[in-house]
């Protein structure tokens, strides 16, 4: 009985590993072709290159301002996830602990933002009126605003399960609300903050829509818009296109591999509890 069960499990395991090829082969294809010569890449095969052309990467770096794009992406992502985490955790603290009718309504208002699509045209008009087109501040705040609903949702389900004793102890010690939030609550929120930050980071880093509408100056583009521009620019040089793509994708893959525990649990736990 147990013998046949282990055997069938092994079959399932092998079948699953085979199906990961569906995910891994496209990635392998991009990486392997990024190392071929301009003529060899036109064959579009999954074969290893005859000679490894690491020079493709150097050429992309020379032609496009990749470091600048990384810098822009980092500015957008890191600033917006920090702003979003601070504002959302403060808001959740009140929404959960001060459970009034109005706050219930406000929470529902935030939930709308998780479902409703953004109207890009009127948002564009607002951003333009506020002189926030092509502005780092503007884009960062817009990202933060768009991440707030999901982040509040995550924080709410976490804070609900925190004991209130610590708050009360803080009050007895004479700490004000902001003080209590900073020195008692925020440290307790570390795991959920990490989750929110990793998820929002990936979302912001990979976002294609906001820069498309709201950043018209190419010097302020992040890596994703640069990568999109490569499609047109290296239309006939797929070796360079793939080299650029690999260069831009690698950091996100590393973040994912390091933080996948947080990403998977955060993206799903918040959903299940709600």
């Amino acid at each position, binding site marked *: 009985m147990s013998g046949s069960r282990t055997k069938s499990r092994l079959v399932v395991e092998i079948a699953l590993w085979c199906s990961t090829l569906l995910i*891994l082969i496209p990635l392998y294809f991009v990486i392997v072709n990024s190392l071929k010569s301009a003529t060899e890449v036109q064959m579009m095969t999954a074969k290893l290159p005859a000679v490894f052309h690491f020079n493709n990467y150097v050429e992309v770096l020379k032609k496009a301002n990749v470091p600048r794009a990384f810098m822009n992406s980092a500015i957008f992502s890191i600033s917006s996830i920090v702003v979003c985490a601070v504002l959302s955790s403060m808001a959740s603290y009140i929404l959960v602990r001060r*459970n009034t009718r109005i706050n219930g309504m406000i929470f529902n208002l935030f939930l709308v*933002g998780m479902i409703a699509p953004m109207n890009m045209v009127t948002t564009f008009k607002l951003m333009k009126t506020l002189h926030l087109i092509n502005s780092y501040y503007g884009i960062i705040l817009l990202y933060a605003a768009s991440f707030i609903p999901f982040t509040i949702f995550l924080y709410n389900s976490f804070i609900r399960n925190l004991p209130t004793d610590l*708050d009360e102890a803080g009050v007895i010690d004479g700490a004000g609300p902001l003080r209590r939030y900073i020195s008692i609550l925020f440290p307790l929120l570390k795991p959920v903050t990490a989750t929110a930050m990793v998820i929002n980071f990936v979302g912001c880093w*990979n976002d294609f829509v906001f820069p*498309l509408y709201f950043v018209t100056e190419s010097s302020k583009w992040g890596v994703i818009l640069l990568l999109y521009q490569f499609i047109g620019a290296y239309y006939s040089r797929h070796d360079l296109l793939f080299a650029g*793509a690999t260069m831009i994708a690698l950091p996100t893959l590393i973040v*994912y591999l390091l933080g996948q525990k947080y990403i998977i649990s955060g993206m799903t736990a918040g959903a299940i509890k709600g």
Partner: protein
Amino acid sequence: MRVSKLTKRMFPQYLLLPALLLYFVLFLIPNLASFYYAFTNWNAVGSVVKFIGFDNFREIFSSASGNGGVFRNTAVFAIYTTVLKIIIGLLLALLLNEGIRTKNILRAIFFMPITISVVLTGIMFSEIYSPDGILNGLLKLVGLSSWTHAWIAEPQIAIWSVATVEVWRASGFAMAIFLAALQMVPKEIYEATEIDGAGSFQKLFYVTLPYLYQAIVLNTLFGMISGLKVFDLIYVISNGGPVRSTEVLNVTVLNEFSKGAYGYSTAMGLILFLFVTLAYFGVNYVFKKFEVDVS
């Protein structure tokens, strides 16, 4: 609920304000404004914005605009991807729930595509789908030359090809939701059914699936909402072409916006909003009717 004075002092409302203000100004105001601008002739040329009633909507739904395909494509994309993501996600979750030694690595691999930039995914699949790309190469290799297609260039199949990329991208996410729900099935129930002599399929249908009901609802909601809202994947792979055969609502919004037809584009965005709202309440309504209670 009424709260005490002490609670009010302990948890002052002003800590809530920064988030609410930012969200209100940058999210709610523009979206509320769209309810007005959708009914105007707002455009890049004229300087006066005039109220024109339902004219934009009449134009959108007129046969001359040729938007019928856009609605069809959006619906095809949303429904096809939702169904396949749920089937594949459920299958992966059931197989990966336990008993597999390398399950953590496997889960991480299956989940990975959703964390890859859509632009990169688009570049990869443009190559895979190209007439001399690896998909056709593979089909020829196994003797199915007659099955080869110009996957993105043939109007009849292009939307299905692009939608399949979304299935590739997000099935792992559906899997993760099912896996999280599977952790909540009490182990004792399995033991009890085993004593009762239930087979694996009986266990699946009568024990496991009822527990997964909520996860199915969630996956349907996520699938439909993100499917209706899809933009970047289609924009990168086919940009709505050939001959608008893969154009979805959000692509039309951008195209009309680029033409300077702001009012028209806003109206299109508002229609998308209505569809998403309808899908949200529709899915909830249908699932409520057939709710399975496991508690």
